[in-house]
């Protein structure tokens, strides 16, 4: 399941939802707001989403991961709104019987979410400027 979170991402809760008694492997990725990006000192960061479409597209990506890889459960949550340095921006977790599927599906979901889910990052920098960030 893909969700948009307007408050802090609860990684522990998401992990509990992803683990499964039948799945021996669990792969996960967390993206954190750091004080430096593309050579600039970041003071704060905001994510904006086209919520309805983001949730649809995010869930399509999760479904694709289930079709492509032998996985048990997969969750992804993306934070929106104003984030502070040290906040978690995105969480992806996948459980599977084998590590290969867990790793590949986790990476697939993260990459596809970054590329396709309508969410945009706006950074504020120490020089007082701010701007919309183009994709890495």
């Amino acid at each position: 399941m893909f969700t948009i979170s307007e408050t802090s991402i609860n990684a522990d809760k998401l992990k509990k939802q992803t683990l499964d008694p039948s799945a021996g492997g669990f792969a996960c990725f967390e993206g954190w707001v750091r004080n430096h990006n593309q050579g600039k000192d970041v003071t704060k960061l905001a994510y904006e989403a086209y919520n309805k479409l983001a949730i649809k597209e995010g869930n399509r990506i999760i479904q694709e991961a289930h079709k492509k890889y032998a996985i048990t459960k997969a969750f992804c949550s993306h934070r929106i709104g104003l984030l502070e340095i040290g906040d978690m921006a995105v969480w992806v977790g996948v459980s599977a019987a084998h590590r290969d599927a867990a790793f590949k599906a986790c990476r697939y979901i993260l990459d596809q979410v970054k590329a396709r889910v309508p969410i945009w990052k706006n950074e504020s920098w120490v020089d007082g400027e701010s701007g919309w960030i183009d994709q890495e």
Partner: protein
Amino acid sequence: MNKNIEILFFGKLKETWNTNKLKLKTNSDDIESLYTEILSKAAQTPHKESIKVAINDEFVDWQTAITDGDCIAFLPPASGG
């Protein structure tokens, strides 16, 4: 035929059009024509090739026909994660 539509702008396209929402009456038949129509309202020249379009919360292509009451969104490249 005149259609009442709503246009949503996201990310840096809000700056391009200086708003996140436009309501207007249009004669444009598809999104491509609508885009050309609203270009005159843009403060900067957007990079059209990188824009994705949606109607009523679903991705569509630029040739998709517009019908009365549609909500059309212009989306710059995603930059989440």
